């Protein structure tokens, strides 16, 4: 079966010494050739023996990107049984990303999660009796990627993608309804207005791609969520950590109705901190939604910070919050230590129904009003990170690249539309490219096309006899 050429980073994404970018497929060698130079200049990799390794550089045009060792394995003697090139570069997330991007630009496409394993299997490299394990790998890697994609994409970006898609779909639906029912819907004079719209769509896509380049598309850092009852001092904590007034702080319980998000760096560790509405059973509809969201954010958190107002006794709301802490990395802040404390660590263990011997909760006494205990809190987070309890989400870079690839596909389709418009091609030609753009953008927010177009046609345009 003829296949395309895929690429991915094969080593763990950390700032380690060495990283490997792997390319596999019929054009693997050709692709690597375009970016590999030796001291003596360009040297065709195809001329090397299989299973040899070569010293040289990865170059982006004139610019040298990294000093590398490049291994060439010719089909069928490789993991995937396809032509394979492995670029051993200096580790470092940014560098590997740069090299992978160059590879993608020169003919490969980003491998789907688990695709190397899938190819190895389908090409007979992996013992067929291990099919089950292979299916597991594909399944779990895809699930992870899917979750990561949803979790890591910034809300504003997914909004932008969504509205672009909506606009594109409307235009396709208009064209298609006119093609299907030319006696009811006319396309006279449409091309001019479409040209303007398409230009705007292109500019917005280019802007999104630029933001992907700046790494501004994704949420970065450890996903940290502040939870607690209303008026415990959650928003004050966020403001303290951010060093400015981000959240509105009042004495009124339930002031924060929706979640606030802030990127914060603590001793070089990046935290994506989300301040949530206080959790309590409430009848207020808006507050209720906030509470629901808070629970949802808590479920997705890497690190939970539970802010307890230690000056008032615990109640059933605390029990429900303790429930959220289970199986999560967490720190409990006994706040308002400037007031008389009525809550002890024992009380919290008791409230959660936990035994002190079996479970170890992390407590810090703080006063957000007096700025007490915050240093200790920061120190604790730092320690958790360096002991590996918390990990930075560098896979965000992979998701970012995947999204960028989809955005570029969409942009290419839109450029095709513009060219067809310039060439005065009939509408039915470029509506196909508009559809491709719509499909590509759907990958970013995890949405399929399905019956979208038919539904849009019938809901927006009055068709038929």
């Amino acid at each position, binding site marked *: *079966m003829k296949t395309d050429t895929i690429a991915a980073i094969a080593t763990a994404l950390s700032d380690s010494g060495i990283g490997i970018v792997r390319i596999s497929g019929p054009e693997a060698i050709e692709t690597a050739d375009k970016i590999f130079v030796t001291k003596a200049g360009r040297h065709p990799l195809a001329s090397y023996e299989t299973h040899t390794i070569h010293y040289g550089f990865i170059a982006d045009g004139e610019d040298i990107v990294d000093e590398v060792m490049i291994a060439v394995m010719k089909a069928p003697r490789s993991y995937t049984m396809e032509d394979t090139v492995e670029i051993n570069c200096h580790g470092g997330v940014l560098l590997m990303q740069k090299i992978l991007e160059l590879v993608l630009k020169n003919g490969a496409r980003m491998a*789907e*999660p*688990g*695709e190397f394993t*899938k190819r190895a*299997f*389908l090409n007979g490299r992996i013992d*067929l009796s291990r*099919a*089950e394990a*292979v*299916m*597991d790998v*594909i*399944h*779990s890697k*895809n*699930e992870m990627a899917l979750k990561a994609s949803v979790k890591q994409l910034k809300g504003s970006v997914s909004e932008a993608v969504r509205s672009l898609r909506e606009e594109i779909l409307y235009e*396709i639906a208009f064209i*298609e309804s006119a*093609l*299907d*029912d*030319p*006696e*009811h819907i006319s*396309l006279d004079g449409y091309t001019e207005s479409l040209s303007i719209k398409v230009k705007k769509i292109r500019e917005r896509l280019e802007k999104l791609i630029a933001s992907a380049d700046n790494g501004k598309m994704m949420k970065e850092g450890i996903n940290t969520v502040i939870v607690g009852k209303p008026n415990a001092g959650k928003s004050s904590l966020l403001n303290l950590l951010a060093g400015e007034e981000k959240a509105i702080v009042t004495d009124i319980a339930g002031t924060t109705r929706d979640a606030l998000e802030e990127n914060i760096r603590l001793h070089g560790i990046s935290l994506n901190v989300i301040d949530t509405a206080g959790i309590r059973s409430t009848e207020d509809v808006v507050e209720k939604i906030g509470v629901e969201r808070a629970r949802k954010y808590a479920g997705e958190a890497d690190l939970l910070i539970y802010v307890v107002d230690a000056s008032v006794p615990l109640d059933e709301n605390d029990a429900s919050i303790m429930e959220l802490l289970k199986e999560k990395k967490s720190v409990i802040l006994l706040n308002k230590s400037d007031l008389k404390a009525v809550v002890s660590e024992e009380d919290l263990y008791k409230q959660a129904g936990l035994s002190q011997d079996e479970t170890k909760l992390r407590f810090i006494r703080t006063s957000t009003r007096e700025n007490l205990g915050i240093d200790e809190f920061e120190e604790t987070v730092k320690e958790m990170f360096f002991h590996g309890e918390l990990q930075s989400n560098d896979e965000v870079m992979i998701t970012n690249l995947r999204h960028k690839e989809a955005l570029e596909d969409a942009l290419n389709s839109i450029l095709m539309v513009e060219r067809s418009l310039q*060439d*005065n*091609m*009939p*509408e*039915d*030609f470029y*509506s*196909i490219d508009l559809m491709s753009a719509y499909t590509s953008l759907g990958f970013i927010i995890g949405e*399929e096309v*399905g*019956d979208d*177009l*038919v539904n849009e*046609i*019938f809901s927006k345009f*009055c*068709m*038929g*006899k």
Partner: protein
Amino acid sequence: MEKEKQGDGYRMERNMSQIKEKADVCVIGAGHAGCEAALACARMGLDTVIFTVSVDSIALMPCNPNIGGSSKGHLVREVDALGGEMGKNIDKTFIQSKMLNVSKGPAVHSLRAQADKSEYTKRMRQVLENQENLTIKQAEVCELLAEEIPGEKDADGNPLKRITGVKTFTGTVYEAKAVVLCTGTYLRARCLCGESITYTGPNGLQAANHLTESLEKLGIEMQRFKTGTPARMDKRSIDFSKMEEQFGDEKVVPFSFSTNPEDVQIDQVSCWLTYTNEKTHEIIKANLDRSPIYAGIIEGTGPRYCPSIEDKVVKFSDKPRHQVFLEPEGLYTNEMYVGGMSSSLPEDVQLAMYRTVPGLENCKMVRNAYAIEYDCIKAKQLYPSLEFKNIEGLFSGGQFNGSSGYEEAAAQGLIAGINAARKIQGKEPVVLDRSQAYIGVLIDDLVTKDNREPYRMMTSRAEYRLLLRQDNADLRLRKIGYEVGLISEEEYRHLLEKEKMIREETARLKATPIGASSVTQEFLKEHGSSPLKTGTTLAELMCRPELSYEILAPLDENRKPLPTEVLEQVEIEIKYEGYIIRQQHQVEQYKKMEKKKIPENMDYDDVPSLRLEARQKLKAYRPVSVGQASRISGVSPADVSVLLVYLEHLSYKEGKSKE
């Protein structure tokens, strides 16, 4: 003496009165699907019986008086290319014809003809009556006869059945090797017009009230759909001076590739355009509560692309007016079809509403508008061959499969008929895929998607439509029609000749150099085209939007006269080559997954790592290929990968057990 003789051999006892007949194929229903199915079977040499509740209603057009239209015209062309009858029949009975979308790309050009309804029916009946191997039988089939196949189970673990025949209401049994269901809108049909409900099929014809029960007993899952039709007016009561006249094309293109174009240059009749207005809409809104749909009496799901005027007024309340087309139903009738104003409102409201339309102020209704509800199946129970997955030898086509439209019906009927015949002949079924034909798209959508409304063909549903043009349906499909046995030797030779001419002329144009001489430059300037920098070819010049084969004649010294149908192909293939090649690449990708077949008895519970939703959907739809699986909503690309790995694993296990 006389009495004795009667008792001897002529007396028929009551309990013995059942007639037993034998046939190869029984086709149930003689609408547009049934006619194609029956003709295909008979022409392929099988002894065929076609059942209809009324012989006078063969190939009836109970709704609009036209054949074709956007993307539907494509279907007719494809049916014709495969050896069906619809195209030939309309070529002989049309009274107006138009090529739609001519200002757009060639892929969406589409033919639509107004039919003389009664002539259309009459001519099709003649074809059926004179077809060798075909018997017409007026009877209501009320039972399907089937037997369990010993030892064989369907995918759900139930015994697999085989069709053995049908039984009519009068008790006659027809044994058959295959049965094709084309019951259209007749199953448990009821027609609604406001508060009054009649339990009939379209046009007051007898409904078929017994078959549904038999189908359900066989384990077939049914659903209920709805559609509707507008009123017919007496032509003499219409004031056409208040309407815009709509003419047919000056030069008519025939539907059938076998029709001589000269034979279709006839005198045509006009259609008429008028509009609804605020007053029409007010009357509708004020009486909505009397519509059976808004009153909740109608349970079936109606089509969104063919909304009643009530629906249009409610859903698009911002539109001040809607188009209304008055279309003749034939040459020898005064009835005019009121296109765009189907309704299920009560008769009195209908009349009041129609009379607000300019030109219809004094209209007299010959037939009122009505909605019709009927039983049909969920088509996921069918293979793409249109055979039922759990009953061998049972096929179905048309509105029974949840589609709508004469053309959609004919297309399915033809394929169902071909495959019923091939089943008996012991041959592989003909399955057209999405890259081969609109018919392929139609059937794949029907059997792969969860259709909640009557399905209509639309050009946007065909993702490879630049390749699936109405002008090249013969090039795409005639060979298949010939292999099946429905295209004659002569028609086939004509096709081969055409292919050869296209090939040679295209090659010649690509090889004809054009130098940047002053004559050429002058010529280009004259036609608003930029001058040449270097030499080029005629083909290259044809790619320029402002130039064409015809315009370039003065630069082409060695041009020989060629048939128009050849030039059309040459022009399209050269002019849009870039786009066409891109679609061909996409088709290659698509075909890979279509080729990966999934075994019929696949146990999805045994596939680890499928997501729950995917597993459920795959079990419900039982796709035949990985490609089809990937188009089921709820099956993700990761599930498809898992499936691929599993299938590889399966074939390994099978290979091992053979060793």
